[in-house]
Structure formats: structure tokens, C-alpha cells
């Protein structure tokens, strides 16, 4: 009995520590740092006291709940090792954590507009950007994480989605909602087109051909001047409407119909909810697919292609569906990107975009949807935060320009994460079917597929 009690204290402490750590990471951007418009630009305030208080409260409350309220006995050593134990505490998105995160995501813009009116646009823009990458990450996760096919040219489908909408709007006056499904379908079609030549390729060769495909699309868009406008891009892409209502000033527009005072922020909040909806759709569909025969076939393909064929699985079709589904979500995200920017040019679809999306998937842990969310917040949010590190000037002198070191710091952080967790932040695999007891599968058993 004493052993159990000891374990409970130790586990509760660890659990409370993890909770506090999460608060520390999340709260760093919301509590510890505060930017205000000051004469001559943005001023960065720090509120370390508030931050530490929040961490301490979470730690104490969580510890108290664990010890006296939940009283959960988690026998230490019953798990299959330390990684598995920590991982079993990392939740998956289909349970209550996902619900909570969704609720937080829904109320977040209202919190921002209420409490941070000065930077509401900046914050909502950043959240839109993060959600776009979450969606792209989930799309690429189908190809790289589930089917195990390394795709270095995913940005091509993002570009195809964006240009599909831009061109449809430019030449045929399509609205966003009409063009959105078409953009997804066109991207899926090109996904299949890319899929065919790479079906027989393995390993590095697969990666290089997909890389080339990404570049081909960009170069075509750049040089087909008559049709795509070349480097000038396409501008004047229509904004999305809310059931036919536009977000402008005056009669018959969103604010007037709902009796709200006109504000430019309405359109940003609306864009935020569109991308949130698209991301949730992506999550629901990919999560369902994983539990369907097609999803199991993808994962089986990643584990052993020859065994798949011996079981009567048509590996050609299975690979093509993975490319098509991944590309489709890339296309949706692309159409959203076009409507958000109002302007597209080949500049936005360079290889670095593919690399960032892939980095999000790899950093989060191949095949893990929760990992993609964390990695997007850390990578995109973190990178944006690194743009205004004024306090570093105080440390390194006035000549120090943090923007120039942004990528360096960022690269260093990635190297550290990969040293600490070589298989990504969430390393375990969730089984897609359970008979009696759900057990997470350690990363050492899960194959990585082709090209890693």
C-alpha cells in the first residue's frame, strides 16, 4: 500500500509539473509578454510576476486535485517505459482535450477583442496563420504520417488551391464558397497526377521527385504570364461573404444587418472562423479515415508494402488516395489563403513553405494530429514572436537586431527538440481499433515508411 501511495505522490507531482509547464509555455505569449503601441512603434512589456503566479496556481491546484480529488492510483512501472508513461498523459484530440481546445479556439477571438483591443488584429491574424498551418499539417500528415510517403512538394497543392480560386474568381467571377470545393477537387486531381510517376519510387528518390513537382508548379505559375500574371500575381480576389453579406461599411452589409457598429475586425474574426471550421473539418475527416479500412491500409502500407500486397490490398490505389486526400486539404487551405490575402503570387509558394509544413508534421510526431497542433503553435507562433524581441537589445547592446537572428534561434530550437525527442513531440501511435484495453504503441515499433 505504501508503494502505491508513494507512486501517487510522485505521479501527481509529475502531472502537476507537466500542467505547470504547459501553462508556462502557453502563458509566455499571453501573460508574460505584452505589446502596446507606443510612439515610434510597438513597445514590449514584460509581466513576469503575473506569469509566475499563473504557473504557481496551476501547479498547486493540479497537485491538490490529483492528491485529494482524483486519487488516481497509477502504478508506476506498469507502463512499458518512461516514454510510454509520459505519452499516456498526452491526450489525443478526439477526447475531452479536443473539445476543450475547440471551445478555447471558439472563444479566443472574443477574448482578444475584449482584453487586447490594441493588438486584436495582429493576434487574430497570427491565429489565422497558425490554424492555416495546422490544417496544412493535418493534410500532409495523411501522406507522410499515415501512408509514410515523404512529400517535399506539398506546397504545390497549396499553390494549386490558391491559384484555382484566384483564376476562377478572375476569369469566371466565382465567389469563395463556390470555388472552395473546386479548389479542393483540382488539388486532389493534381495529387493523383503527382502520385502516378512516384508510385514505384522509394526512399530518397520519392522525396526528390515530389520536391521537383513542387518547383515545377511554382515555375509554371511564374512563367505562364498570359494566364497567371507571372510574378505580378493575381490581385482583387474576392473576400468571403457571410450568406451573401459583405463585410463593408454601409447599408446591406454584415454590420448593418446585425445592427453592430461597423468595425474592420469583423472580417478578420469571420476569416478566423472559416479557417477554424476548415481545420475542424480536416480533423474530423482525417481522424475518421484513420479508423476506416482505407486509413488502416495507409498505415499498413507504411509498415510493410509487400505484406499489404499479399493481403490483397491494391497498393497503387491506396497510395493515390493518400496523395489525393492530402492534396485536397492543401487545396482548401490554399483557397482560404487566396481569399485572406486578396492577392496571390508565386512568391508565396516557395520550397521553404513545404519545409515548414513538413517540419510541423515531423516535429509534432509523424502521424500524430495533436502533435501537429502543438508544433504549429510553437513554430508559427514562436517564429512570429521572435520578430519582436526588443529585450534582447538590452542584453546584447543597441546594435543587436533580433530579426536577423530569428532563423538562427528558430533553427537551434528545432535541433534541440529533435535531440530531446527524435521522433517528434508526440511519439506514440493510437491504435485504430480496440478489443479490450487501449494501449498506446511506442515509436520504436512504428515504421516511418519511405524516404525518412
Amino acid at each position, binding site marked *: 500500500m505504501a508503494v502505491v501511495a508513494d507512486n501517487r505522490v510522485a505521479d501527481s507531482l509529475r502531472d502537476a509539473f507537466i500542467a505547470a509547464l504547459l501553462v508556462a509555455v502557453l502563458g509566455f505569449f499571453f501573460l508574460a509578454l505584452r505589446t502596446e503601441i507606443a510612439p515610434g512603434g510597438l513597445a514590449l512589456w514584460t509581466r513576469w510576476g503575473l506569469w509566475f503566479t499563473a504557473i504557481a496556481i496551476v501547479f498547486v491546484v493540479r497537485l491538490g486535485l490529483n492528491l485529494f480529488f482524483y486519487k488516481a492510483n497509477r502504478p508506476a512501472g506498469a507502463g512499458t517505459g518512461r516514454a510510454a508513461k509520459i505519452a499516456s498523459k498526452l491526450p489525443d484530440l478526439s477526447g475531452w482535450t479536443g473539445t476543450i481546445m475547440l471551445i478555447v479556439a471558439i472563444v479566443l477571438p472574443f477574448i482578444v477583442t475584449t482584453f487586447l483591443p490594441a493588438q486584436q488584429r495582429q493576434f487574430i491574424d497570427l491565429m489565422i496563420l497558425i490554424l492555416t498551418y495546422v490544417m496544412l499539417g493535418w493534410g500532409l500528415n495523411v501522406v507522410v504520417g499515415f501512408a509514410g510517403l515523404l512529400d517535399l512538394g506539398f506546397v504545390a497543392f497549396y499553390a494549386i488551391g490558391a491559384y484555382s480560386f484566384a483564376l476562377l474568381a478572375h476569369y469566371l467571377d466565382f465567389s469563395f464558397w463556390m470555388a472552395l470545393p473546386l479548389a479542393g477537387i483540382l488539388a486532389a486531381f493534381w495529387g493523383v497526377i503527382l502520385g502516378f510517376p512516384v508510385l514505384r519510387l522509394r526512399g530518397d528518390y520519392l522525396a526528390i521527385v515530389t520536391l521537383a513537382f513542387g518547383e515545377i508548379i511554382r515555375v509554371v505559375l511564374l512563367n505562364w504570364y498570359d494566364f497567371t500574371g507571372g510574378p505580378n500575381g493575381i490581385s482583387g480576389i474576392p473576400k468571403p461573404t457571410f450568406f451573401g453579406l459583405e463585410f463593408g461599411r454601409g447599408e446591406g452589409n454584415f454590420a448593418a444587418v446585425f445592427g453592430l457598429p461597423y468595425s474592420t475586425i469583423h472580417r478578420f474574426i469571420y476569416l478566423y472562423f472559416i479557417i477554424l471550421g476548415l481545420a475542424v473539418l480536416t480533423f474530423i475527416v482525417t481522424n475518421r479515415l484513420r479508423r476506416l*479500412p482505407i486509413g488502416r491500409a495507409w498505415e499498413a502500407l507504411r509498415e510493410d508494402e509487400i505484406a499489404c500486397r*499479399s493481403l490483397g*490490398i*491494391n497498393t497503387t490505389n491506396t497510395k493515390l488516395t493518400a496523395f489525393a486526400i492530402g492534396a485536397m486539404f492543401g487545396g482548401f487551405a490554399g483557397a482560404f489563403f487566396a481569399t485572406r490575402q486578396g492577392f496571390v503570387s508565386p512568391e508565396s509558394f516557395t520550397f521553404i513553405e513545404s519545409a515548414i509544413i513538413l517540419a510541423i508534421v515531423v516535429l509534432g510526431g509523424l502521424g500524430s494530429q495533436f502533435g501537429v497542433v502543438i508544433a504549429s503553435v510553437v513554430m508559427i507562433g514562436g517564429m512570429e514572436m521572435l520578430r519582436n524581441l526588443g529585450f534582447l537589445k538590452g542584453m546584447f547592446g543597441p546594435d543587436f537586431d533580433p530579426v536577423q537572428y530569428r532563423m538562427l534561434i528558430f533553427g537551434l530550437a528545432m535541433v534541440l527538440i529533435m535531440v530531446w525527442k527524435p521522433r517528434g513531440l508526440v511519439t506514440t501511435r493510437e491504435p485504430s481499433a480496440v478489443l479490450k484495453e487501449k494501449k498506446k504503441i511506442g515509436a520504436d515499433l512504428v515504421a516511418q515508411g519511405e524516404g525518412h
Partner: protein
Amino acid sequence: MSVITQETTVDTRSSWDLDPVLTVEHLTMRFGGLVAIDNLSFNVGRGEITALIGPNGAGKTTVFNCVTGFYKPTEGRIVMRHGPGRQKETVDAVTAGDGTWASSPEGAVFLLERMPDFEISKHAKVARTFQNIRLFGGMTVLENLLVAQHNKLMLASNYTIGGVLGLPRYRQEEKEAIDKAVYWLEHAKLIDRADDPAGDLPYGDQRRLEIARAMCTQPHLLCLDEPAAGLNPRESAELNELLQYIRRAHDTSILLIEHDMGVVMEISDHVIVLDYGVKISDGSADFVRTDPRVIAAYLGVEDEEIEDQPEIASLVVEALGEEAAEQAGIEVPANVDPAAVAELAESSTAEQPRPGRVHPGVRPGGMSQPREQGADRLTIIQGIGPVNERKLNELGIWHFDQIGSWTKEEIVWVGSYLAFPGRIERENWVGQAQELARKNKAGDGE
């Protein structure tokens, strides 16, 4: 001219010739200049266990890869029949046309050499396992069995669309698929490990899981590539039980490659022996056991050496009869009568190897008698069959620890003595023997 020619040496009334589920005809497979299989023909009887045996490199796995579509044969025809009988007209009709299969009232007929690998499993219902186990290691045992039911579930999920929408038909079918998985898990004695990752299972369990997974595709023919390789005697027994159950309770015919002659002789109805891509014997287990060509191939002896070695000569005599042996120029030992021959073959008299034959290396030391607890069963070591066991006993080698302590020179000598140099090292007899000796010791200690 008939397309089908029988090359079997037994009478044509054998059950596998009358009702073959699989017929391989004139199969030839060349890799560049190398002829891996040369004009091979055989039948696999419906509902029977057929073993394909032969020394290393004889082309057994190549035959499997041709049958299951992983290789396209250079020449030949491979016919799979779902219905009874030879169905000659249907087979000829499909062969004349461009199609890969034809349905007939008795059951469909497939030409496997024309079909891609996944269709052979999907439509022709031929399942296989692999010599080096190929499980989905990062997926649970249950998931492995669900992947095997992919095509059925794919249909039930309306090619994913119904499944994404959550239609009830898919849920119902998935439940049935899980029930079927549970059925096979129970028979493979893996039900307690259903939610564990397949990569975590012990070796013997993985072998049985691979068979259970193949059975989930509801095959008419199950091809097993060395299912007993690397199993200990207990696991081997469990495997035999599973195979016997599959044969008994399901209409599944089994074609297996096996090195372990114990397993082959115990469970097979029909044995086909290959050597250098050519069939050298085909018949019942008893027939093959005594076939001199088989013995020669397995021991790697030249024809003239058969005369040199009285045991083999006796086996040859036993197999062919005295007259035939005399015609073949084999000197019949004077005192031969069937009972004595059998005794000679069974007994393990500590006979010294014949003087005059010089083997390289150093002869390992032996004991005239096994220790008091009795001789170890050397056949447990992979690669040692009954014949080799007897020959080793003749050297005075009775125990695992004796083999475990062989030096390099001694291995060379024994390799030459048993007439297959290099094999002892390749199959790691010494390592296996050390392992077994350790287990013996641990067993005594308890």
C-alpha cells in the same frame, strides 16, 4: 498434344492429381542467366497439406513467389481452382483467351501467372506468409487482422464514403470483422495479446499471427514459407496444432515450405522435393522418405558415394528393392533382409567412420556412450535431421554441449564428414547447441 503432362512417379490415382486446388505446369523462372526453376510441374490436392522441400537454394521460395504473383514466371501455367475436379475445358478456355479467370458451375478457375499479386489474394484466394515474418509491427494484433479483411470492409464502407458519413452498414460489418479476428486470435492462442503491438510479440506468436492474418483473407489455398523456422519444440507443436485445425475445420488447402523434416513428415499428406529448381521426387511422405534421390540430395553425396555408405545403400535397397538396386550397380550388403535394414537405419551403433576417407580439420572427440541421463535429441537443432543425428552419434556425439564446444577445425571436419561443408556455420549449429545446453542445465537445476 495434351498440355498437361504428369511427371509424378507415383500412380496417377493420387488424390492430388484427381482433385487439385492448384496445378503448376512447366513452370520456369530465369533470373538473367540463372535458371532458378526449370520446367517444374506439380499438383496441390484440395483439402490436403502439401509440403515443398529441398536443400537451401533449391528454388522453393521462388515457386511461392511465382504462385502468389510476386514474380512473373518466365514460362508455364499456374491454375487455381475453386471448384472440385480438374475442370479441363474451363481451364483450356481461359488459357486460350486473354482473361485471367473464368467462372464455372463448379467454381471459378484462375490463371495465376497472369494476375498481379494483390488480385491473387483478393480474387483467387491464395494467401501467403513470409520466410522473414512480415507483420505490421507498429499496429496492434487486432489491427493486423483487420487490415487482412481490407477488401470486404472497403466494400462495406462504400469505398470510404459511407464510412466517413458513419453509415450503419459499415459499423455492422466492422463488428463482424472484429468477431472474425477474435475467432482466429482464439485459435492462434493470441487473444490475450489482441491490443498489443505485433512487433512486441515473441517470435513463435508472430509466426502464428501471420498465419491467422493470412486466414482472415478467407483463402482457398494457404502458402506458408517455413512456418516452423526458428521455433522451439513447444512452439512447433502449437503451430502443428493450428495447421491441423485449419485443415480440419476450414476448407483450406495448405502448401508449405519446410526444412524441419519432423514437421513435414508429421503433418503432410503429399511431399514434393526440389533440388536446383528441378523436381526430384513427388509422393506421399513415406514414399519421399525412402526415395534415394531425396536422400542423396539432402546429404549432398555423389552417386558413387552411395555405394560407400552402407546406411544409404540400405535405404536405397529398401526403397527400390533388391533387384533394382543391383541393376543400379549398388552392392547389396550380404546379410540384407528388410527387418535388418530397418534396424540398421534406426539403431545408432557406435560405428567408427570408415577408414580411408580423410576429412580436413580436426575430428572432434566423442564418448562411447551417452551420459546417464540419456542422449539429447540433436534433431531439435535446426539443420540436423535423423540421418545426421545418427551419423553424429556414430562419432560419439550425443549431447548439445559437445556440439557447443566445437572449434573451427572441428566444424570443418564434421562439415566434410556430413558432406555439406559450410552448412554448420550457416545454420549456426554451435550457437543453437550452446543455447539448448544452457536450457538443459537450467532445467536440471529446477
